[in-house]
């Protein structure tokens, strides 16, 4: 079993403190929903957990080990998939930067082969988000942090994407932290709901 742990994490942008003494722990068989009002620092926490922000106090570990260099076992799926894709790359290169999934997984996510030849600007938000989820599902990933990944999608796509993500994550024993300000979504999808205000001072 893999355990992800955040211990005594504090962070602020400049003097503007966002997170104070945060403690959180989960294992790779869990799907946990993290709730917080908008502006409460959820995205900031996601960036800390996944190494996008590094100058924080405290520690983030997987099985007791801090990440330094190489593939990060904690991967972030972002609210805006277009921001984490090189706009000049075709989708095939975008995906392969992480790995190339097999047919089964591609089908699970409804990825069409013809999309591979397109640029990010030539796909819809929902289609891009599928790619961005797939990239994060690299076999080396142990935890996925999903930061409001379905906010901008319509209800049907939202359900489809979450079903595919959870199917593959469960099959591969990947823990999922679903971050949202939407309690209904968290209740529907996750095993457990955690309030950001409860795990910080």
């Amino acid at each position, binding site marked *: 079993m893999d355990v992800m742990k955040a211990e005594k994490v504090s962070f602020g942008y400049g003097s503007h403190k966002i997170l104070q003494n945060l403690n959180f722990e989960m294992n790779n068989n869990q799907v946990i929903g993290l709730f917080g009002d908008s502006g409460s620092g959820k995205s900031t926490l996601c960036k800390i957990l996944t*190494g996008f922000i590094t100058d924080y106090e405290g520690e983030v570990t997987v099985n007791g080990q801090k990440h330094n260099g190489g593939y990060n076992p904690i991967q972030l799926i972002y609210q805006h998939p277009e921001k*984490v894709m090189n706009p000049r790359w075709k989708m095939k290169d975008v995906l392969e930067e*992480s790995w190339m999934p097999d047919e089964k997984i591609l089908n699970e996510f409804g990825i069409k082969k013809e999309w591979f030849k397109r640029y990010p*600007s030539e796909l819809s938000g929902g289609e891009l988000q599928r790619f961005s989820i797939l990239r994060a599902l690299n076999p080396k990933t142990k935890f996925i942090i999903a930061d409001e990944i379905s906010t901008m999608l319509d209800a049907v796509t939202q359900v489809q994407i979450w079903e595919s993500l959870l199917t593959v994550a469960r099959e591969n024993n990947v823990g999922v932290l679903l971050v949202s300000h939407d309690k209904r979504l968290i209740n529907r999808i996750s095993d457990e709901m955690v309030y950001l205000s409860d795990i910080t001072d």
Partner: protein
Amino acid sequence: MTKTEEKHKKFLNLNLRTKTLLIIGIAFLILFSVFVSNYLIDHTAVLTSNFYNINQPPSFEHWFGTDWMGRDMFMRTLLGLGISIGVGAFASIISTIIAILLGVFSSVNTIVDEAVTAVIDLFGSIPHILLIILVSLAFGGGYYGVVMAVGLTHWTPLARVLRAEIKKINTSEYIKLSTEFGKSKMWIAKKHIFPLIISQIIVGVILMFPHAIMHEASISFLGFGLPAHEPAIGIILSESMKYLSMGYWWLAFYPGLALLFLVLLFDLIGENVHKLLDPQSAQE
């Protein structure tokens, strides 16, 4: 984007590509013929005076007319363009190297970046012509002086663009994510950064070239550039000023036009290549 819009875009794209290739073809043909003619033309024969033929207006025999020494202006213009292109090419190479070095150097850390920005701003703020003249004088003038002067003063726009571009790429989320995927700095530089800046460099050089030529001509015209015995366009223009009042308009008109044509041609190529290599920004 709908199907028809997509088709429309493709059609326009194709058009732009063929158009650009056509212009590049023309430019290459001109450069090549100027280059070849510079080798084939018997310099001394062209530049020696022939007093039976002085100050003739343009005719079939002398397309651009002849000057007060009976020299064929078409030949002189060709030679002049040859010199201008040579100076422009050398100067552009120097400027490009400086711009790339500074651009890449600026990404080391914030202190270096601020220093680079300061240098760029400093050079950018001094009036161009003045700086070129000073540098040319400092290098002892002549062909060498002009090449150095133009080369050492034309890197600022490209350096600015490269610095900004590298900074933008480096702070983008997809570069950060690339590190999370375990990619090395080298891999990121090679796959993400280099392909992006190479198009900026190509466009920068193409746009820099006509500027370099113009400035060479300007300072030669003002008498600070190439020596008076060289048939450079700037020299031709400044000499012909004395004869304009006598109505020998062709002495300045055709060489000036030829230079202008060359400059505009390269500006056009630069713009089109920019649109081709950078469809993203062209779309916006």
